[in-house]
């Protein structure tokens, strides 16, 4: 059985990717940001996931205003980095996991989440920057440490899906993963945020108090977060801070009780508050599970 073992929240600021691509990681401004992810990279190397599901948003790269899918799942075998105006980022092509992705699509659509399926899609910094932050710098001609299933969420045009809807989609993804027969260790990323506004006369807004409260509740009391109306996100965390709903897909895919493995927060990276968290599912009570499994075997024997 496949299982989601941990969830990762991470900002996906494009300037972080540019700093990495242009060799600026040792500059004090950027070192402050990158050093916050060193422990996470060690954790990731140790955890060695088989697959990562990455919830992110596209920024006028793969999707323009011609088609705006609310939830789009990448089922392709590979996802090339998009040209965002300065040429594609010098990172490897992202390998997909079509078998698990199509299994998830089938399962969650029957659970009433009407996904868009993408069998060909380019991915932008929204996805590749968190990958760099957690997997480290990877040479363009090398490969990422694990296959990835992209889940693009519309947070560009209002209204994005509600926080509650995102959380429930996470729940459906968890169910889908757990019904996949192969033994796979899966991690799920929620990306974007935290507080930031990059548009209009109020650009530059940062609300650290909001961010801290969001991270606290994400860890301990996510039900409190699913009720937040969109206007509160936009007012308190900035017009573009509404990206934070994507973290709730990740949280919904985890167990109710999780252990906070790590947290990092710094202001700013360009116009944004950088937030990062790792939440791990607790080990399942295997004794009880074995008991149930044994009971099932007995029942099967009696039936046959």
């Amino acid at each position, binding site marked *: 059985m496949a299982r989601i073992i941990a969830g990762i929240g991470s900002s996906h600021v494009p*300037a972080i990717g540019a700093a990495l691509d242009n060799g600026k990681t040792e500059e004090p401004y950027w070192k402050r940001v990158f050093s916050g992810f060193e422990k996470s990279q060690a954790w990731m190397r140790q955890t060695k996931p088989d697959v990562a599901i990455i919830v992110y948003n596209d*920024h*006028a790269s793969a999707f*323009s*205003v*011609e088609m*705006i899918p609310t939830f789009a799942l990448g089922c392709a075998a590979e996802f090339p980095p998009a*040209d965002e*105006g*300065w040429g594609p980022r010098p990172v490897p092509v992202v390998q997909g996991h079509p078998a698990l992705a199509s299994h998830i699509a089938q399962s969650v659509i029957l659970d009433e989440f009407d996904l868009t399926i993408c069998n060909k899609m380019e991915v932008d910094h929204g996805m590749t920057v968190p990958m760099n932050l957690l997997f480290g710098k990877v040479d363009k001609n090398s490969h990422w440490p694990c296959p990835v299933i992209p889940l693009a969420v519309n947070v*560009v*045009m*209002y*209204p994005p899906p509600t926080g509650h809807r995102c959380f429930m989609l996470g729940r459906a993804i968890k169910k889908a993963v757990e019904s996949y027969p192969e033994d796979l260790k899966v991690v799920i990323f929620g990306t974007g945020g935290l*507080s930031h*506004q*990059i*548009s*209009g*006369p*109020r*650009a*530059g*807004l*940062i*609300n*650290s*108090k*909001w961010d801290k*409260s969001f991270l*606290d*509740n994400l860890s301990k009391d996510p039900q*409190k*977060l699913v*009720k*937040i109306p*969109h*206007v*509160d996100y*936009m*007012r*308190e965390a900035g*017009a*573009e801070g509404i990206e934070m709903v994507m973290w709730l897909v990740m949280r919904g895919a985890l167990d109710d009780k999780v252990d906070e493995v790590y947290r990092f927060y710094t*202001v*700013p990276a*360009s*116009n944004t*508050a950088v937030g990062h968290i790792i939440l791990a599912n607790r080990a399942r009570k295997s004794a009880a599970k074995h008991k149930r499994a044994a009971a099932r075997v007995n029942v099967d024997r009696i039936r046959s």
Partner: protein
Amino acid sequence: MARKQHDYDDIPGTFVFDAERSRRGFGINMFCMSLMQDENRKAFKANEAEYLKKFNLTPEQTEAVLKRDYNRMLELGGNIYFTAKLGATDGHSFQHLAAVMTGSTQDDYAKMMLGGGRSIEGNRSRSGKAAPSRFLSGAAGKQSAAKPKAKAKANKTKAKSKSAKRK
């Protein structure tokens, strides 16, 4: 037809890119998207007004683009991820655009960000009536959650007279 008022119109200095703006601003955003290609950037730079004719913009939208009035573009349906491509075509960094939109110098804007960004205090609400979100944990959040109904009622009547004045 006048724009329908929404709860988020009370957020100061913000043009929410909603379904209506998305519809009205389709041409602006498709124009910006076209700038992803080098040949289009060159054609635009060679004759801006002529190039814009392909995108069915309204006269106001055309004027906003030609004048590089970024806030007006947002108001008329442009989205920041798209209009940023116009800024890049002009050779500007994103910080330059942010400074233009906020009416400050790039230097001052950069300093504000290094100092922790623009504070939410004083920037929460146009009407000045929105209390901090009750979803914030801690004492402040709880306080505002204590009696939201009575306050909301008082706000409603006042907000009405205010929006009437604005029109």
